[in-house]
């Protein structure tokens, strides 16, 4: 996935042009570089290696490949010079260094140019830089970038900027940005250092804050120090914003899962006065259905593996809805006039489901393939990364919410549900098959729990006991939101989700649960019917 951020390379363009007075374009003449590297003069050799490293920036990718060959030959003492010719010895005979054409000159008559320790270090650094431009595999580029971090001899800010512009791997980018920032901060001209500080501060990450703070420790110039303080203050502000956003974001993702689970619960409770204690296990059924879909696709259509989460949306829904339908037909419909008994019955069903899965599949956590659209994320402000797996949960919840609203408001089935919820006897008298409506609604509610299971599969551990923790929170959502109210359920889910993530880092997960529970008990004192109870209910 291309990770496009507002690139600090772009912000730096003017600055780079300013400080890179001697922009090291690849010498048009490869021969000149070869001559310099063969000269035996330390200064000329250093400059030649610098130019070779800069060859990576060339539009023509063959330049980089050639430069890498030369640097590696120089390092490996396979480059031989003398009599105005330069050869690279290979297993199949010598080739001309400048053109890579075969040569009939006897390499044994030529001597390798002198290589001292510093030149060797520069050459290694240059080779790593060229690898950065040539390697296709991100892991290799990452190792090259880390190598340059230790051997900076041939690294310059413009080269790294060029590499950054081409780079799309997050980890490599992170290493390169820091590296370039620290190179810029070592510039002898205070004006350049100030410009560097300001440019770095544009990208407010904790990593950049550390880089600036470290540079300021050795800084003596007052103006630069002032610029550094301002930059750190601005980064801190952005980090603060990012932190708040990231808390809200993870709260929103928890809220979406909660909402999906509670929505089904709310519809069923509003319609039949029944609380389904197996709702958590229906979540588990949905997650397991997603896993089975993944395994089926893995064996049958491996090409589509990345899309299993999308394909599993109807499957998870149907699997949980089917289990719900069976529950309704076999058990729940016999108990409509005894809601307390349905608690025991649905609990027994949850026990059956958990233990059946435990016995047949095992109690280990399932392993899920992470397709590209649920891995990684979009860095927005500060250290706040809008992670894709949470985004997926939110998107599924929003889509489900919209679908359910349309279903309830626009379809005949939805009208039946609303009618039966408001007045069962009258709805029956008006010709609505109330038992059938109950059955369908129970399936719908169960299916929504299945969707919750799918949405949380990239986020949480999936195992037979995963659902048990959800029932309490989901029920709190129903109590807070008001029975059978969509808006209420949505708002309550958001509220409880946010409280959980806000309290959790400060006082721990237990305190968050205690807090929510106490809040709900106090709330019931004030509004026993919930936030948005439909008028005229029962």
């Amino acid at each position, binding site marked *: 996935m291309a990770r496009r951020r507002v690139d600090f390379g772009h912000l730096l363009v003017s600055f780079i042009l300013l400080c890179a007075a001697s922009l090291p374009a690849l010498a048009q003449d490869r021969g000149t570089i070869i001559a310099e590297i063969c000269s035996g003069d330390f200064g000329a050799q250093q400059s030649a290696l610098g130019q070779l490293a800069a060859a990576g920036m060339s539009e023509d990718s063959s330049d980089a490949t050639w430069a890498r060959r030369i640097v590696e030959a120089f390092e490996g003492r396979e480059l031989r010079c003398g009599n105005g010719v330069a050869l690279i010895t290979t297993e199949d005979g010598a080739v001309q260094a400048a053109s890579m054409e075969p040569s009939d000159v006897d390499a044994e008559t030529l001597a390798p140019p002198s290589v001292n320790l510093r030149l060797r270090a520069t050459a290694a650094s240059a080779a790593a830089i060229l690898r950065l431009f040539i390697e296709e595999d991100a892991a290799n580029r990452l190792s090259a970038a880390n190598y340059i971090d230790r051997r900076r001899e041939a690294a310059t800010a413009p080269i790294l900027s060029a590499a950054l512009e081409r780079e799309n791997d997050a980890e490599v980018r992170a290493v390169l940005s820091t590296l370039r920032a620290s190179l810029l901060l070592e510039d002898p001209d205070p004006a350049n250092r100030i410009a560097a500080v300001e440019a770095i501060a544009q990208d407010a990450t904790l990593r950049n804050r550390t880089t600036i703070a470290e540079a300021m420790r050795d800084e003596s110039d007052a103006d630069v120090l002032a610029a550094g303080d301002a930059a750190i203050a601005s980064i801190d502000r952005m980090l603060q914003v990012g932190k708040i956003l990231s808390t809200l974001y993870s709260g929103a993702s928890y809220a979406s899962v909660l909402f999906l689970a509670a929505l089904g619960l709310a519809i069923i409770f509003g319609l039949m006065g029944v609380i389904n204690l197996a709702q958590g296990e229906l979540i588990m059924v949905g997650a397991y259905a997603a896993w089975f879909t993944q395994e089926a696709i893995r064996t049958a259509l491996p090409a589509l593996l990345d899309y299993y989460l999308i394909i599993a949306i109807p499957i998870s829904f149907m699997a949980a809805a089917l289990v719900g339908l069976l529950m309704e037909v076999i058990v729940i419909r016999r108990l409509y006039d005894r809601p307390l008994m349905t608690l025991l*019955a649905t609990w027994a069903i949850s026990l059956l489901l958990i233990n059946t899965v435990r016995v047949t599949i095992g109690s280990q956590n399932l392993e899920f393939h992470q397709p590209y659209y649920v891995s990684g994320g979009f860095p927005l402000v500060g250290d706040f990364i809008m992670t894709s797996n949470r985004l997926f949960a939110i998107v599924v919840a929003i889509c489900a919410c919209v679908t359910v609203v349309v279903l309830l408001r626009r379809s005949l089935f939805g009208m039946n549900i609303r009618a039966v919820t408001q007045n069962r006897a009258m709805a029956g008298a008006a010709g609505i098959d109330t038992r059938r409506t109950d059955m369908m609604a129970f399936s719908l509610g169960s299916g929504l729990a299945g969707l919750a299971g799918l949405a949380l599969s990239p986020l949480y551990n999936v195992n037979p006991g995963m659902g048990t923790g959800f029932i309490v929170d989901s029920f709190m959502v129903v109590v807070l939101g008001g029975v059978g109210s969509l808006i209420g359920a949505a708002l309550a889910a958001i509220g409880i989700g946010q409280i959980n993530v806000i309290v959790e880092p400060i006082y721990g997960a237990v305190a968050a649960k205690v807090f929510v529970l106490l809040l709900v008990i106090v709330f019931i*004192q004030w509004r026993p019917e919930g936030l948005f109870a439909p008028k005229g209910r029962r």
Partner: protein
Amino acid sequence: MASDTFAERHRLPLLSRIVVATLIALVVAVPLLGGPLAGSAAGLSPYMANIIGQIATFALLALALDLVWGYGGILSLGHGLFFAAGGYLIAMHMLKAGYVFGGVTPDLMTFMGWSELPVHWAFFESFPYALLMIVLVPGLLAFLYGYVSFRSRVSGVYFAIITQALTYVAMLMMFRNDTGFGGNNGMTGFTTLLGQDIGGHAMVVGLASASVLALLVAFIGCSALLRSPFGKLLVAIRDDEARLRFLGYDTLWPKLAAWCLSGILAAIAGALYVPQVGIINPRLLSPELSIEIAVWVALGGRGALSGAVIGAAIISALKFWLTGFVPEAWPFILALVVLVVVTLLPNGLLDLKPQVLWRGRRSGKRGMIE
């Protein structure tokens, strides 16, 4: 829900008499067969005595729940909270007494690196103080929660789920080490109770006898209470609370009284249970156990104290027996029992008998108690 057959069943003391007679027999037999006659052919091994004692505490717990569910129509899915409260309090007494008088350092002090026990352990070395706490703390807990719930007329499914949530939260809190109750490991390593060796033969038989006696006293006491005008009021509240309010009754206090009594009985059951098993940890607070209590009552039959006692005895005996050799099958059996009971036997096992006894008197499903 109105219950015509209920009143008749209540006046029909056959089952109650059987239960009382069995309990009296046990109160006499357990100390006798477990004590002087332990070695003889009819003798009771300490293991069997211990199991009888444990089942008696479960039956007492079921009785406590039946009082509020069967008679008051208030289902609690959190009676494990009171049971565990009683258990934790007696465990604190035993550890503290062992520490102060016997010089045995409790594990949790070593584990937490404490040189002294926290403030809330003060005075627990005194047995009367511990007893007082076993009544007061769960009673107060029940009062607080009952008051806020009944006052705002939270009932039925709402009430049940919130009790479950409370128990769940209590479990999470007890799992933490810093609350000072032993955290995940709970409390164990009890040495003495009332100066007697906890593992000794006399103590095991004594505790079992005390449990059966407590059950008998609670059974007779609750039966008497339910025959009194208070019991009638409670049943009336269950059947039509709104009507009772219109008639000018304040329904808050009778409900609250029954709820607190139930909580205290459950705590006493817990206090008798923990010395017999020798350990308490937060798993006693898991929602599963609390729901299992409701299953005992539902199986035995709500609305008859004898039903609750019989249900608890049958299921826990079955559990002791089955988990011995097929532990993984137990959840399936329990779940199937529940499903069969709720779908086919609305009043639990009591349905089997009354169908023979009262054939023709039942009208449809009106005999069911919610």
